[in-house]
């Protein structure tokens, strides 16, 4: 299939994980449809922990007081959960950006260190309460003291406090800290250019994230070319989706057949290792085939033989390396047996 590897950063994945992924498919189908609470599932996705090259994007989340940072996926993908109201405003954007800039990932520090002339205050849950007050209290003494640096900081403070007041009404439970920006030498210090500069840097930071996400963009300098690559990448992803749905439609004469076809070859490959032996569901014993799953060590060899035998279908071999796995933290899916009985 396509030579481009979407998951190119993980080329050495053991193929048996794809098998577990298949089992996972069955397990998921078996599970009764659980109501998906959007907010709760999102916070489940959010995890702390930096990875190799990532900055962190964050949107304030009232329920996550202890984990303010959105986690990033290993190959540089970032998931984020903005609050439902799109009008978080400039304050939140600054916040997100500042949190990203000062992210805890050491790998990202090389990328962001040139920018760290800015005094960027890290965003953490414990600071929430402290931020509300300094905005109010600092402006009073600051206003009396002239001096360029203090004025800049005060400008920022004023701006931040205004925005904070504006935003407080919209986010009742959330406090939005703001960015302390020290202007660099020889740069304009009025609020407009500060805002513009913050915005530009925000855009640049996110462009950097995109560059790391899209393969082959790291060497490219210049926004236009990077955008070109991004557009190409997104278009190719969309085309792949079309292609795969066409393949799926071609394979199955009807839609319902789709689901059946998942199960039987699974059982064949799992139980025998001699592929393919079509098994009927009546052959499946609940207790008897549990032992198959316990022989986890055999899975890689099963899978290898499976893939090797499927030379004819052209997409299989590349797929084997591209199929990324369901994490084994889910454990051995014994429920696939239940699945069979239910279906």
């Amino acid at each position, binding site marked *: 299939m396509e030579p481009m590897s*979407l*998951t190119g950063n993980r080329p050495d994945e053991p193929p048996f994980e794809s098998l577990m992924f*298949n089992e*996972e*498919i069955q397990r998921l189908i078996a*599970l009764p*449809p659980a109501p*998906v609470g*959007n*907010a709760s599932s*999102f916070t489940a*996705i959010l995890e702390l922990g930096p*990875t190799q090259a990532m900055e962190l*994007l964050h949107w304030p989340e009232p329920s996550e007081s202890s984990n303010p940072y959105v*986690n*990033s*996926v*290993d190959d540089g993908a*970032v*998931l984020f959960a903005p609050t*439902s109201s*799109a009008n978080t405003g400039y304050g939140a*954007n600054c916040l997100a950006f500042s949190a990203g800039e000062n992210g805890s990932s050491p790998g990202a520090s090389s990328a962001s260190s040139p920018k760290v002339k800015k005094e960027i205050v890290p965003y953490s849950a414990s600071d929430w309460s402290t931020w509300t007050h300094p905005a109010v209290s600092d402006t009073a003494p600051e206003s009396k003291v002239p001096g360029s640096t203090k004025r800049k900081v005060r400008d920022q403070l004023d701006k931040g406090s205004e925005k904070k007041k504006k935003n407080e009404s919209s986010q009742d439970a959330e406090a939005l800290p703001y960015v302390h920006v020290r202007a660099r030498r020889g740069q304009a210090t009025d609020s407009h250019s500060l805002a513009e500069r913050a*915005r530009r840097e*925000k*855009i640049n930071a996110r*462009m950097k*994230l*995109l560059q790391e996400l899209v393969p082959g963009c790291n060497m490219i300098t210049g926004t*236009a070319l990077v955008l*070109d690559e991004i*557009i190409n990448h*997104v*278009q190719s*992803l*969309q085309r792949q*989706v*079309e292609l*795969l749905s*066409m393949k*799926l*439609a071609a*394979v*199955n004469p*009807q*839609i319902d057949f*789709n*689901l059946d*076809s998942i199960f*039987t*070859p699974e059982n064949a490959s799992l139980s025998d290792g001699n592929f*393919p032996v079509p098994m009927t569901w009546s052959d499946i014993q609940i207790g008897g085939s549990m032992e198959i799953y316990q022989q986890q060590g055999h899975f890689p060899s099963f899978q290898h033989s499976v893939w090797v035998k*499927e030379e004819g*279908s052209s997409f*299989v071999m590349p*797929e084997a390396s*591209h*199929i990324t*796995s369901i*994490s084994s933290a889910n454990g051995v899916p014994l429920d696939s047996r239940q699945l069979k009985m239910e279906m």
Partner: protein
Amino acid sequence: MMTDRTSLRQKFLKKWVKGLQMYSSPKKLTTVMERKRFIRLSADVALASARGGMTRWSRALFSSALKDSQDKHFDRKIPGRAKGKERKLHESITRKITSRKVLKGIREGARKKGKTPSNRLPARTIAKRLVKKRTQLLRKIVPGGESMDNVSLITETLDYIISLRAQIDVMRSLVCLSGHLDA
């Protein structure tokens, strides 16, 4: 982290399978193209709902897939409650789009067309123009991109790429699984 990606894949898969199972009337899906269309629409809907409406692209994708599926008389693809909410959001988005387009038209009409002399433009202007064109293109590609500012456009693109990858992973492995049956 791995679990982010896998949990996204799991969610997508769960919803997609649910949607496929909900498919009730087999009357219209006879040709491959129609089946492909149904599969793609259901996958898009599942992907968008796996994202949960937190991102603008997911809402836009959801509403456009919904509109698409209604044209083809698929049987009640999406439950009514969600339909109403998404329709409202969709309307608000289209309103924003049209207003933005109107404003753009006014601005460009006010600017004198072709006022730039044929001298060499500074490189910065050329670069800016290129970037502007590219962002326009990106807006067209990312669902719901028309009504976003540049900052959120980039963020949405990030999220969209990740979700697309998850979708492709799941679909690809399904294809492999069904491919086994042929052998």
